[in-house]
């Protein structure tokens, strides 16, 4: 039993109060939790601007079947295939 007392006494040299560090850590944890909650509310769906280049590309894609109803034949006739 003396040995146990010795071991316990040797371990009780200096005990630090870590409560201020815990409080700071908890405050930081709460802040990050709050930020995450706000971030969920702030989500916005943003589409890219429908610029002239996009409009031109879309028009071309839509018109292509009318201009070339048989694209394979067009490619063969033009020597690309």
């Amino acid at each position, binding site marked *: 039993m003396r040995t*146990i007392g010795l071991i316990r006494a040797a371990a009780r040299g200096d005990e630090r109060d870590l409560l201020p560090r*815990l409080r700071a850590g*908890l405050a930081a944890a709460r802040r990050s939790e709050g930020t995450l909650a706000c971030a969920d509310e702030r989500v916005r769906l943003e589409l890219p601007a429908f610029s002239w280049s996009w409009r031109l590309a879309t028009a071309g894609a839509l018109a292509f079947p009318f201009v070339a109803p048989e694209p394979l034949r067009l490619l063969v006739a033009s020597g690309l295939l």
Partner: protein
Amino acid sequence: MGDTPEPSDETLFAAWRAGDERAFEALFERWQAPLARHLERMLDDAATVDDLVVETFLRLHRHRDRVRPGEPLKPFVWTIARNLARNRLRMQRLWGWLPLASAEAEERPTPPRAGRGEVAARVSAAFATLPAAQREACSLRLLGELSLDEIAAVTGASLGTVKSRLFYGLRRLRVLLADLDPEKE
């Protein structure tokens, strides 16, 4: 006032979950010293120990919903600390492989600690000679002040295994520290 029984860990935890911040701090004040003593014996690094004690309670705060009602709280907290310590030891071993880390460790001397005399050094050295499982069991019992059942719950070992580890560990510690015992002189 001195006759007022202290609230149980579970009562404090329930009060904290109900919104009483002071109850959480009371739990921390109750456990920080034994937890630090145990972790220091396992890691032998005061700066890391402080980090882990605080981190243990921050994890408890984060995972408070995982504690089931009626479940003993102490093994839950000590298990968090145990996992953090094991992770830290793994990291230290990993860093030990890198030449840069070992050079840094050589340059940085271990800071002297108050009250860390010859006896403390001898006790630390004696613990270091124990097999890891015996060292952990002895540290949890003597420094963490856990019961045998709590040690079994934390380490995942059976009660018989815990008793055996404690028996052999303490026997070896008594032999190694026999000359420090004032009654034997």
